[in-house]
């Protein structure tokens, strides 16, 4: 089996970059679908971290948790997209600033 040529730090730094981009998207964008993109990017950054630490420790828990996380993210996207469709049907828009009646 080949030796790991890349260091753990490099993977974690890529994950930090993805997390930063995701948080930028959540803070700036007002489009519902773009915010869902940003959430997906953040979840993927977390998965990358888990698998990287699981490889370097080495422990099977990292990959197992990543698999759980991917499956739960799929459910989250299904519910998020159906919420988008319902909100679009009600307001004919996907701008979250227009969803005023959802406010408490």
């Amino acid at each position: 089996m080949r030796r790991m040529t890349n260091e753990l730090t490099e993977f974690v730094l890529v994950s930090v970059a993805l997390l930063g981009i995701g948080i930028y998207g959540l803070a700036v964008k007002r489009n519902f679908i773009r915010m869902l993109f940003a959430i997906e990017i953040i979840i993927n950054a977390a998965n990358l971290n888990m698998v990287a630490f699981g490889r370097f420790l080495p422990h099977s828990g990292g990959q197992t948790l990543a698999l759980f996380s991917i499956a739960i993210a799929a459910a989250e996207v299904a519910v998020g997209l159906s919420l988008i469709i319902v909100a679009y049907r009600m307001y004919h828009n996907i701008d979250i600033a227009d969803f005023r009646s959802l406010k408490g």
Partner: protein
Amino acid sequence: MADAAFLALSVITIGSAIAALELRSLIYGSIALMGTLGGIAGFFLLLDSPFVAMFQLAVYVGSIAVLILFTVMLVKRELIFKKVEDKRRKFVGIALMLVMMVSLGAVILDSGIKQITTDEPPVDFREIGKDFVTYYWPALILMGLILSGAVTAALVLARRVDEENDQRVN
């Protein structure tokens, strides 16, 4: 040091993540998101986790990205290209992103993560399967229930209540 494959994957993943958020058209944005998800699958391959990489490709690139693409196509054409952004909010967002990246990066570079290296063989995927059915079996059942509940909830939410038809029947 990072090898060429790692650098290429980083450029693809981070570049397409930015493109997914910044491209004018939502359709091109969702295709760029596919690039990010595929890039992450490439990272999993580099980390000797082919099983998770294939799972990522099947679930994310294969189904979630296509689902997003179809939802985007259901939305009105003008809304796909409309980009409402506050200039000041954008600058604050970029500043927040930079502060976060620099501070987290500094913490990581300063921590003891650098010393973690391994020469051991990667975890066998058979071991993951064994873990799933022995140690994690309650979580696996719970995950199945959550998935079926979420899919049912999504169907109930997106169901169209056709009032005219109801009145006609009544």
